[in-house]
């Protein structure tokens, strides 16, 4: 039936190393976009810094016992919040690719099905690493001082990045299900906004009404913020770190396959 000789037989699946290279190439594509659209830098550089200044100098006096004290508390809360909101950008970017037909081009290529999704997630985590470095630098200039060690601070940053990478798959899955980027934006915001603001990222959960505390303490955003804070300014470390990593593992195991499946099924 086929005219191909056995030697010409194309491989039946993507080799794992090739899939990783493909993910890398697609991550490169997202990062190179920044070069052509420098305005995007504002999106992931200026915005988080503005958030930090706003929270510390405007709200800090009222909710945190003065800007300086609140800065110690909130810096990693903002780093966590910013990381989570980045995952919404990931989903919107992928939805735009679906919308504009770039995904069809990719899906007709002999590449791993997860590569377009993972490539985008990876690129956004790289942008996030930059945003964290920036926030940490600005925070330090404003007076933030880590109470732990350099390795502990690096561990906090690593933990936030790993969790962002993992949680992103939830949003990616949503992005694959929604009809267009606008719907992703709305849906993502409706989920992320309350999840972040009812967490312990910006305030101590103990100040919330009892019913909200129950929700807030189980919120993965609270867990991650507490873990990062524990590693940098002191406080419980082991429990929130383990719980955060557990949430991350669940996100990847459950939502990454769902997202890839939804991507394959997308007409």
């Amino acid at each position: 039936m086929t005219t191909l000789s056995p030697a010409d037989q194309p491989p039946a699946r993507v080799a794992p190393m090739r899939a990783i290279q493909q993910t890398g190439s697609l991550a490169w594509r997202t990062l190179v976009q920044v070069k052509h659209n420098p305005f995007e830098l504002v999106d992931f550089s200026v915005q988080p810094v503005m958030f930090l200044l706003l929270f510390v100098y405007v709200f800090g006096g009222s909710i945190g016992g003065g800007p300086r004290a609140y800065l110690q508390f909130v810096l990693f809360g903002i780093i966590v919040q910013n990381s989570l909101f980045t995952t919404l950008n990931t989903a919107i970017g992928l939805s735009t690719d679906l919308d504009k037909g770039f995904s069809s081009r990719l899906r007709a290529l002999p590449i791993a099905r997860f590569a377009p999704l993972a490539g985008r997630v990876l690129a956004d985590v790289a942008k996030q690493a930059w945003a964290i470095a920036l926030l940490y630098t600005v925070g330090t200039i404003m007076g933030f001082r880590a109470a732990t060690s350099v390795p502990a601070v690096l561990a906090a940053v690593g933990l936030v990045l790993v969790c962002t990478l993992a949680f992103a798959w939830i949003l990616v899955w949503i992005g694959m299900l929604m009809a267009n980027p606008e719907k992703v934006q709305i849906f993502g915001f409706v989920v992320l906004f309350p999840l972040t603001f009812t967490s312990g990222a910006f305030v101590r959960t103990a100040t919330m009404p009892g019913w909200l505390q129950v929700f807030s303490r189980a919120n993965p955003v609270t867990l991650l913020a507490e873990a990062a804070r524990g590693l940098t300014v002191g406080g419980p470390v082991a429990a929130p770190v383990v719980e955060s990593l557990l949430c991350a593992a669940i996100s990847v195991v459950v939502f990454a396959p769902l997202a890839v499946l939804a991507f394959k099924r997308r007409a």
Partner: protein
Amino acid sequence: MTVTTTVRAADAITARGLTKRFGATTAVDGIDLDIPAGTVFGLLGPNGAGKTTTIRILATLISPDAGRATVHGYDVGRQAHQVRQLIGLTGQYASVDESLTGLENLILIGRLIGASRTEARRRARELLTQFRLAEAAGRAVKTYSGGMRRRLDLAASLVGRPRVLFLDEPTTGLDPRSRGELWDIVRELTASGVTVLLTTQYLEEADQLASQIAVIDTGRVIAQGTSAELKARTGADTLDGVFLALTGHGACPAGPTDDLEEVTA
């Protein structure tokens, strides 16, 4: 017809009873195709006839609800990965990244299909030159004209030197000059042995490029043959006439040609 039952050129594309429904609409309704390797096959039909859906099934983008199809013997469903190594796809929905440059787009695809950095760059330059985009290589695609954009789309589907090329309405929306350029490119490709499956709503385009034409309407192949055979069979002397005679309605209101003739069927 000179096709014999015993000796026959290997088919690049076959389809049997291909069916695809979207909700209550049957977009593709039992399409059969046998497209010999190295030929240009035209799927001719109006908007909504099922041309794009057929191409999307053959290009492994969607799975059929019934029937099966093969590309060089590989099943488009079960052996999609093998099929993807043999095909190129150009359509209005299979686009490139507009915020990247033409060069970056082609390098990206080269890298994705396994070329080294050097090889991907070399192939990208080669295609950009071939498609007269060398000067625009370093510009973001969003600054390209419609014709340039379509040439880049086509170049993008050729990076991996496909043996089968799907062209979904390659010239829709192009001015006559750009359309002529694209036709020339398709002719060069077929001269090099590539099998082309082309969809078009333009009768002249099918007449110009395709050796075999399948006329499709409401998801079914209603006639198939060479342009001359179709004309002889229906007694019409233009493809417009063929279409009208077969379907009882016109192909499309506005083709690319200014010489749509008045047909008395």
